């Protein structure tokens, strides 16, 4: 057996876990680890400019590859800087490994320099966390951390490592465990066949069925099976913000995203359905609107890996606890075998109704008479320029909703957004994490002039590692989503949602960081600029696009209403 120091065991364990890249930032408590990293070539390290970005990059790397991303930060401020990233991953159930340095073990509790109880700070936002107490525990802890992060309902796992645990002066026999044993952690996988049978019976007999699919379909690798189930049932499918790409966005059975800024047709379909099949979705408040008025005529079937998600916000009729892919597989088999006959007449009438809803709204927006661009146009142009094939990351705000509505995602893991936490600053590092995970893909971040400034320092990291992110900044000169709420709820009092001429020149800023900057002010320039942006294959392009500052995101559900209560534009409501 080999003799390795704690730091070497850490790196070797990560390698044995299949890790190729770590996103991180050095500091006192992790210097032994950085020294061990320096002396090997198996794992690459990406030096960020702020630890928040490291955590978002690791998170997006997981989202896009399906393999957990790893980030590394020093104790104290390094560790606390990852907190937003950990919370972001936690809310979207993303597997991620966070390694933090800690002051040496005999100083813990002494208020030592750069000591923070990061386990305590992060306890509510991790799936689990560990503190290394003995260097020889490192391999097993890493094994457990990956196992916990990636199985069941995934989530971030933090490992806090006091500096003395990684000291180069002591060596230990290294062996990476082949298996983990944890008596207190077991993972459900297959769903209950009897429950699946009941669900199939209900679905086949339904007159107005709908499939409501969430992020669990994407993360649980269930997209293909879901597509087969939906096609087999002939029912409409709607995706949550997290679920986009889980069912092909251009398919005719897809009625678009549902919820607060969902399409008119998706929300109408949900409201009028008699059977709702929820798959890997969690009845989030941004989806249901007022829970008391949610789908009052519907029987609800809920497939989820997390028993605690079931009947948390909405009482369901048929719960099925299990891994989305395994449950859908069995469901598909049962649907194919069943002798029950579908209510074809009922369903034909249902589709007629759905088509009428589609024709009525179907994401319409008014163009300006002037050359002033509407943000929706920019997303449409982006869709054309990338043939619908790019990985689209976003920040948070109106631009995020426009991207969700107007880009059609045909494949899972093509849409990377912070849904649960709604973290501004996520977009740029997320795109970087995606490019490192999928270097051959076109990776775009759709952002706002507000959000991009929350992690803008990463433009420097992009230069260092040659990451050709395409930044499409929908510049409406305001914290647009905040301003929209102020327009709608606070009689237009724009309290601290604009910047009074203080925005930087983003073109010059991009250039200062060694990248290409472009500005688009006129509708007639848009498509050509977009083409040019994507023709610069190896360059990061920052495209600053001026868009109509008055535009609001619609539809928008009306607070306290049901799914079908929506504003359709500034004056028209359902």
């Amino acid at each position: 057996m080999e003799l390795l120091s704690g730091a070497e065991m850490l790196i070797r364990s990560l390698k044995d876990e299949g890790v190729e890249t770590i996103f991180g930032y050095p500091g006192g408590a992790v210097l032994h680890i950085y020294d061990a990293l320096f002396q090997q070539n198996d794992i690459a390290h990406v030096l960020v400019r702020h630890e928040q970005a490291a955590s978002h990059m690791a998170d997006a790397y997981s989202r896009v590859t399906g393999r957990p991303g790893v980030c590394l930060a020093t104790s104290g401020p390094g560790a606390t800087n990852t907190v937003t990233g950990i919370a972001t991953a936690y809310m979207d159930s993303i597997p991620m490994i966070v390694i933090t340095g800690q002051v040496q073990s005999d100083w813990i509790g002494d208020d030592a320099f750069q000591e923070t109880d990061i386990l305590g700070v992060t306890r509510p936002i991790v799936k689990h966390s560990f503190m290394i107490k003995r260097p020889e525990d490192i391999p097993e802890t890493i094994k457990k951390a990956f196992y916990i992060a990636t199985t069941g309902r995934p989530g971030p796992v933090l490992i806090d490592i006091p500096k003395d645990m990684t000291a180069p002066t002591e060596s230990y026999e290294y062996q990476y465990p082949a298996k983990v044993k944890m008596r207190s952690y077991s993972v459900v996988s297959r769903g209950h066949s009897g429950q699946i049978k009941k669900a199939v019976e209900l679905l086949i007999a339904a007159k107005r069925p709908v499939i409501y699919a969430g992020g669990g379909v994407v993360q649980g690798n269930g997209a293909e099976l879901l597509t087969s189930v939906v096609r087999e049932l002939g029912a409409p499918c709607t995706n949550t913000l997290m679920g986009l790409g889980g069912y092909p966005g251009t398919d005719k059975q897809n009625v678009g995203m549902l919820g607060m800024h969902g399409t008119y047709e998706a929300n109408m379909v949900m409201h009028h359905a008699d059977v709702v099949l929820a798959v890997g979705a969690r009845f989030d408040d941004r989806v249901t609107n007022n829970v008391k008025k949610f789908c009052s005529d519907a029987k609800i079937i809920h497939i989820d890996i997390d028993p605690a998600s079931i009947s948390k916000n909405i009482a369901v009729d048929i719960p099925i606890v299990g891994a989305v892919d395994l449950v859908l597989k069995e469901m598909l088999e049962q649907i194919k075998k069943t002798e029950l006959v579908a209510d074809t007449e009922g369903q034909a009438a249902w589709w007629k109704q759905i088509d009428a809803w589609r024709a009525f709204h179907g994401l319409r927006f008014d163009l300006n008479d002037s050359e002033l661009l509407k943000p929706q146009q920019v997303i449409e142009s982006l869709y054309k320029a990338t043939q619908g094939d790019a990985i689209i990351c976003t920040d948070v705000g109106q631009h995020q909703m426009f991207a969700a509505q107007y880009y059609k995602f045909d494949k899972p893991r093509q849409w990377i957004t912070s849904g649960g936490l709604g973290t501004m600053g996520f977009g740029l590092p997320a795109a970087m994490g995606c490019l490192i995970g999928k270097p051959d893909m076109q990776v775009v971040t759709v952002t706002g002039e507000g959000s991009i400034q929350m992690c803008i320092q990463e433009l420097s990291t992009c230069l260092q590692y040659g990451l050709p992110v395409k930044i499409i900044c929908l510049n409406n000169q305001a914290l647009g989503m905040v301003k929209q709420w102020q327009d709608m709820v606070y009689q237009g009092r724009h309290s601290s949602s604009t910047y009074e001429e203080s925005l930087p020149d983003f073109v010059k800023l991009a250039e200062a960081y060694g990248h290409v900057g472009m500005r688009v002010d006129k509708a007639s320039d848009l498509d050509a600029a977009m083409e040019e942006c994507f023709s610069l294959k190896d360059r990061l392009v920052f495209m600053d696009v001026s868009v109509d500052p008055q535009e609001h995101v619609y539809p928008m559900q009306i607070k306290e209403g049901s799914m079908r209560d929506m504003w359709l534009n500034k004056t028209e409501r359902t």
Partner: protein
Amino acid sequence: MRRIISMLLENEPGALSRVVGLFSQRGYNIETLTVAPTTDATLSRLTLTTTGSDRVIEQITKQLNKLIEVVKLVDLTEGAHIERELLLVKLKATGAQRAEIKRTADIFRGQIVDVNSAIYTVQLTGASDKLDAFLESVGETSILEVVRTGVSGMARGDKVLAL
């Protein structure tokens, strides 16, 4: 409704804080909490009482079960069970009160475990409502100090909470 939830917990630092943290994070309330090691040194037994609607209790048990360190969990109130709590109370005991307190303690099968010329310290075990009733009987004015352990419990009959 009041529930008694009892669990086996990995005897590790941090495990207890995860259980307690869960209650504050999710806005559930803990009324009593007791925890101590078991005969298996790697496990602690934790018992807590809480109140909430059936929906909330279901969430509490599901969320507790998700904690990695919770090895096994049971809601004792779902079946026949034994519930015990221990009370120590220091009472003003002078003049006629002395005999009165002694009598009341006897009725409740309490024991006087410490005495001086002005004070009785009474020890009492039982279900929480019995302890409440005793405190009410002796009256607030004579109570100097109260300490209660919180509820412990077990299912009746064959059922055991063990690995």
